[in-house]
């Protein structure tokens, strides 16, 4: 076996072994050694120790005999053991012998034309039929196939390689020799068929599939980080301060317009207390002047109830109650009017501020889906809600308080303000 090999690669051997004697001795010695070593090496192809560097074609043949995959560190994409494992797995699936050599070119081939092709022929002579994929560090790859099915075709591997290259990220993605070799072996595993894209994508996503991109030197990357951070910090500071200063110093818009703008709240005016008492006195007198029939009529009874409700809330000292007393007094007044003029509407105040007077319009409130009765002024332009001053929270619109007034809108939202006020106050007292 060894003798036959030496004879075929004669020129090489002659250079290596100077004399015939050493040739014979060397051959016997190598045969014994190969017989001793080969079975063990074949049983454990993935030993922990990487094989010694194969610098000649003969050394490569010897290594290929023990292990059909030969990857040297200069072709291993940073991890020869992993590359070897990936290729070995792929080779194991093939139905025919497949040999892969990713190595530095033996010096003896340096002056040859197409060294990868030449050496594939030499390998085949030494190791027999099969598929030989050879890629040298310097030079292009070659795949030779001897004694294999006719439909075997390596074009799918290169089609898949180009497709993966186009899908890859980066500026100029270049597939590694290892990636190419893996795809060629895959093409041998599935002769005559396209490579399954799931397999190709799986390989293409590995860190060794493409030659790495140029990294920015660490000092440049660190400087860039500082520059970017400084730009953002100073930029935000400058922009923020410009905007802040601009807004803080901005003059209010034209005086006339801002005066026309309604305030955010309407307070209960001073002196209301006196006016409500006066009005209540007046309506009481009107009620007392009614005849017995009038008093027992529905309108007369409603007037009496409204006066009673007004009396309960007029002196509580609460501003909103005082406004309620005012509204109730007006309701009573209107009911007495209705004794003589039944066509008149019952009294309903402006929902926005009952002190505006009677509602004569309805308006869709801002940010709401209810149409509320409002006075004619609020119908043209919605004013601010009647509000009450809270010690901590500033001004609060009455509709946001938890009072009977908020629930009823001072009678703008309900028809039975009197009853609700009486019920509310009888519970409390």
């Amino acid at each position, binding site marked *: 076996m060894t003798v036959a090999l030496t004879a075929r690669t004669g020129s090489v051997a002659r250079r290596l072994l100077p004399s015939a004697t050493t040739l014979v001795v060397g051959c016997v010695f190598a045969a014994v050694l190969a017989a001793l070593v080969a079975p063990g090496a074949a049983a454990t192809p993935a030993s922990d120790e990487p094989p010694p560097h194969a610098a000649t074609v003969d050394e490569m043949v010897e290594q290929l005999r023990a292990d059909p995959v030969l990857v040297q560190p200069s072709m291993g994409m940073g991890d020869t053991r992993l590359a070897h494992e990936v290729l070995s797995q792929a080779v194991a699936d093939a139905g025919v012998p497949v040999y892969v050599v990713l190595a530095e070119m033996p010096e003896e081939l340096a002056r040859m034309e197409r060294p990868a092709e030449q050496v594939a022929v030499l390998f085949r002579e030494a190791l027999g039929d099969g598929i030989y994929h050879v890629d040298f560090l310097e030079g292009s790859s070659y795949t030779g196939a001897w004694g294999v099915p006719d439909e075997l075709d390596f074009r799918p591997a290169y089609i898949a390689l180009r497709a993966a290259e186009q899908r890859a990220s980066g500026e100029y993605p270049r597939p590694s020799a290892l990636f190419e070799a893996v795809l060629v072996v895959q093409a041998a595993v599935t002769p005559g068929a396209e490579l399954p894209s799931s397999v190709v994508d799986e390989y293409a996503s590995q860190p060794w599939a493409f030659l790495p991109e140029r*990294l920015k030197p660490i*000092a440049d990357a660190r400087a860039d980080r500082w520059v970017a951070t400084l730009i953002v910090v100073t*930029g935000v500071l400058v922009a923020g301060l*410009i905007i802040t200063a601009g807004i803080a110093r901005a003059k209010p818009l034209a005086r006339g317009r801002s005066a026309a703008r309604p305030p955010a709240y309407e307070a209960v005016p001073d002196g209301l207390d006196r006016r409500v008492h006066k009005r209540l006195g007046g309506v009481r007198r009107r009620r007392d002047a009614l005849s017995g029939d009038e008093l027992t009529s529905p309108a007369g009874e409603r007037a009496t109830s409204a006066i009673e409700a007004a009396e309960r809330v007029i002196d509580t000292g609460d501003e909103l109650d005082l406004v309620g007393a005012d509204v109730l007094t007006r309701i009573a007044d209107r009911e007495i009017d209705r004794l003589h003029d039944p066509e008149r509407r019952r009294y309903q105040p402006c929902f926005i501020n009952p002190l505006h007077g009677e509602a004569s319009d309805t308006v869709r409130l801002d940010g709401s889906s209810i149409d509320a009765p409002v006075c004619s002024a609020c119908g043209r332009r919605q004013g601010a809600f009647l509000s009450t001053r809270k010690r901590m929270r500033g001004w609060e619109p009455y509709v946001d308080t938890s009072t009977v007034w908020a629930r009823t809108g001072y009678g703008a939202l309900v028809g039975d303000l009197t009853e609700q006020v009486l019920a509310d106050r009888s519970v409390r007292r």
Partner: protein
Amino acid sequence: MRKMIIGTVATLVCAVLGGAAAWGVMSSNLPDETATTERARTAADALGESNVYVDPGLDGAFTDDELARIEAAAASSDPEVFVVVWPESRQAGYRSSSEVLRQIGLRLARPGVYFQVSPGSALDSVDVGIDGERFSVYETPDDEWSSRRETTLLLDKIEENDGRNYTLGESTESSDWGGTAGVVSAGLLLGLFGGGLVGGVGLAGWFLARRRRAAR
């Protein structure tokens, strides 16, 4: 006055958050300095014993005498010199010779100048762990490579390196911004202009929006 305080506080908070975000984003762009390729590991381990490492593939590229002279010059040079002799490769998991030389230097953790010698390729070097006068050898190969000529060139470069001023530590010199002063002034200047532009546009936008709101 209140607007001024609120605006200033909000600006400060935004500046801190923005700065942190920029720092974080740019940190993910830093090359991973912990990754070491197989070749770099092998070379670094060998350089622990001797200042010259010759890859088994180039056994015999230099004579023993040449190697001994290089070794002696490299070991006695200040800053120290480490030489890797191997065939240059793009298929070994790194992009450029300076990348792998830096990997070797970081793994060996000895400050000095790391040379790559590859027959037929350029002689290259990087400083690792030292910050000194700019020293860079990048000699394109002659047509006819010979170990004798390469040895002479290498010994010349080692002699040139010997005795140059340096301090321990990494250089902060950046090819885009220069040194620390360049980085700071570039950052401040660009930030000032950019921020001024954004601030002006933002303020104009605020005035426009206010006028439109008032007109409604």
